[in-house]
């Protein structure tokens, strides 16, 4: 199989599986949050309400395709698919096992960060083209937050790269398999880098406590205010995909990816990803959100200097102790 063909087939498989997991996770989150809140959650459609998401998807598709009269209709239409596209593109370089990966780029981490960062654009386009004040405020917040958190995200992702001396995901994972997972070894920089990466991923994916761009108690629904039907569905789906993929990336570069005893690599990778994904839900349904200026202060005053320091510590560690390929 040529690399192109390989990439195409596996890309399709991974994208399909990820979208399915993202959709299923909506059901799971509804059940999980219901249990946290002493409710039952969906119970009526299918066993334990698992078909509720099918009903919801059908409902969304049936909805009238509304585009506000004063909106920029072309940009308004373009924004939701591009959000999903950019989010899903990141999945191309994530290795789910030694074999299950679409493209093993030698600049995998760079690709992940670069394409992931593009998601800010369709979000801004969505907010701007809606011609709605709440959407505009939400988009302004989203861009400020997305750009600010991109920097500590990149720097914290650099720590495993420095340790493994490679930007290729499979190299990072094999170094971890040979030594230890970067989250526990070398003790300190890896763990803190993971925490920063996790916080920044929450902020990038607009999850509580950083869901300020949509902050429905303040901005009604933020950038998604004017969206209805399947376009809204796509924007929501992109958010879940973003969370899922961020969990997968964190699992790969900090938790040793497919490395684990007894079971095949794919199982371990999926298990780690879902564990992180679950943690994000847990945080979401426990905390309230920050205010946008507090969010910025957290980023620029604490996360950014700390992540810079971590990269330096990691570099010194590699220089004196020597890890990596």
């Amino acid at each position, binding site marked *: 199989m040529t690399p192109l063909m390989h990439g195409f087939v596996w890309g399709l498989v991974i994208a399909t599986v990820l979208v399915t997991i993202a959709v299923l996770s909506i059901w799971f989150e509804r059940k999980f949050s219901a249990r946290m*809140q*002493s409710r039952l959650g969906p119970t009526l459609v299918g066993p334990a309400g698992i078909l509720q998401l099918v009903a919801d998807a059908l409902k969304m598709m049936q909805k009238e395709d509304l585009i506000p009269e004063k909106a920029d209709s072309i940009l308004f239409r373009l924004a939701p698919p591009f959000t999903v596209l950019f989010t899903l593109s990141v999945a191309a370089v994530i290795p789910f096992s030694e074999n299950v990966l679409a493209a093993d780029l030698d600049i995998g981490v760079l690709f992940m960060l670069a394409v992931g960062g593009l998601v800010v654009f369709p979000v801004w386009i969505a907010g701007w083209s809606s011609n709605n004040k709440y959407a505009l405020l939400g988009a302004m917040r989203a861009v400020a937050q997305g750009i600010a958190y991109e920097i500590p995200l990149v720097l914290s992702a650099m720590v495993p790269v420095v340790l493994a001396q490679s930007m290729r995901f499979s190299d990072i994972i094999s170094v971890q398999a040979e030594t230890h997972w970067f989250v526990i070894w070398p003790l300190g920089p890896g763990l803190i880098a993971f925490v920063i990466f996790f916080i920044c991923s929450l902020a990038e994916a607009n999850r509580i*406590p950083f869901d300020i761009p949509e902050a*429905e*108690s303040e901005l009604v629904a933020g950038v998604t205010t004017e969206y209805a039907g399947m376009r809204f569905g796509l924007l929501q789906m992109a958010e879940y995909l973003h969370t899922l993929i961020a969990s997968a990336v964190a699992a790969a570069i900090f938790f040793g990816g497919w490395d684990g005893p007894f079971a095949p690599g794919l199982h371990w990778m999926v298990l780690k990803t879902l564990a992180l994904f679950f943690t994000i839900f847990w945080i979401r349904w426990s905390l309230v959100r920050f205010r946008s200026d507090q969010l910025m202060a957290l980023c620029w005053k604490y996360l950014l200097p700390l992540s810079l320091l971590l990269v330096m510590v990691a570099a010194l560690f590699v220089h004196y102790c020597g890890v990596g390929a």
Partner: protein
Amino acid sequence: MHSVTGVDPHLDIETYDPSADLMVLNLGPQHPSTHGVFRVKLYLDGEIIIKAVPYAGYLHRGVEKLCEELTFVQIIPIVDKNDYVSPMMNEQAIAMACEAMLGIEVPPRALYLRTIFAELQRLASHLLWLGTFGMDLGGALGGGATLFMYCFRERETILGLFEEVTGCRFHYNTHAVGGNRHDITPKFSCDTKTTLEVIEKRLEEYVQIFSSNRIYRARTQGIGVLDGDLANSLGITGPLARASGVDHDLRRDAPYHIYGELDVKVFTESAGDCFARTLVRLNEMYESIRIVREIIDSVPEGPILGMKPGKSPGHIKIDASQGYSCIESPRGELGTYIIGGGKSRGASAYRLKIRSPSLHAASCIPYLFPGHTVSDAVAILGTLDPIMGEVDR
């Protein structure tokens, strides 16, 4: 924090920095965090509010006018819907005003019942406030909603108690001129005690959430500082004023029902910010639990409805045809002024005036919002806790 330089509630927007690119944002009348239909017109410079103009009246139903058409018996279920979060208070206020005007003494057992209902209602009302405030801060899809569901779970148990007595969960129509309609049973006393035990235990957890969670603190401390003098000059009462250091509570300072026999502890805070208002309300919830516990077993036997001429605590008779009552509702001083001799053969009011604490609470919005962001505005509005049914009537 942002620099709040010279907050001017009456700022003329024309004189503001002409180079600033202002945005006018209508928060409401349909907005998730206005808790009803309320509109605040915000002038934003970036995300900082420079001027806020509240507009009330979207829920005006003409209750006061309606009360002139109906008899004293008929108006009680009508005023139930004013402060729809604490209907017991509305009923008591109107019943007391009528009794004051007519010079009717309320039987002791009814006074005890009213006190118990009032304190349970205060607890329920504050629980609802706590839940919705959590939602204001955390959103309907997040940790705030979790707090909301917990608070509603507790509130449901109190509504269950009311249902046991009156048959209604919400708009009770249990108070009448001269006493109460529905008597409590020994089972009610027993259920109340178990319910309060559960609520008290769970309240500990909510206090923990507020006092130990850094995000909650960061979102509330130093936000929306209300000055004590300003509170007085705007007629703000209740938990809002007490959080600003105004040590005033009608239950202690002008006792009605049987509060005169009780030692009501009044909690004050000096900070006047959202966090202080939160603390005051949380403390009041404990105090309500304590009061109900103290009196639930000592309710005297006897009739609950009577027409004996006389005067009960809290009745303010002005002359033969005018009466006034003021009680401490969960939102502050709820006053009712009634002039008798209306159209329905003398058994209705010629004029009824309700002094609602929520209207006064909403009146401080132009003073508190400027200098804060939209996010803070939502938090401030949450702690002001205005009930729109009461603002507009």
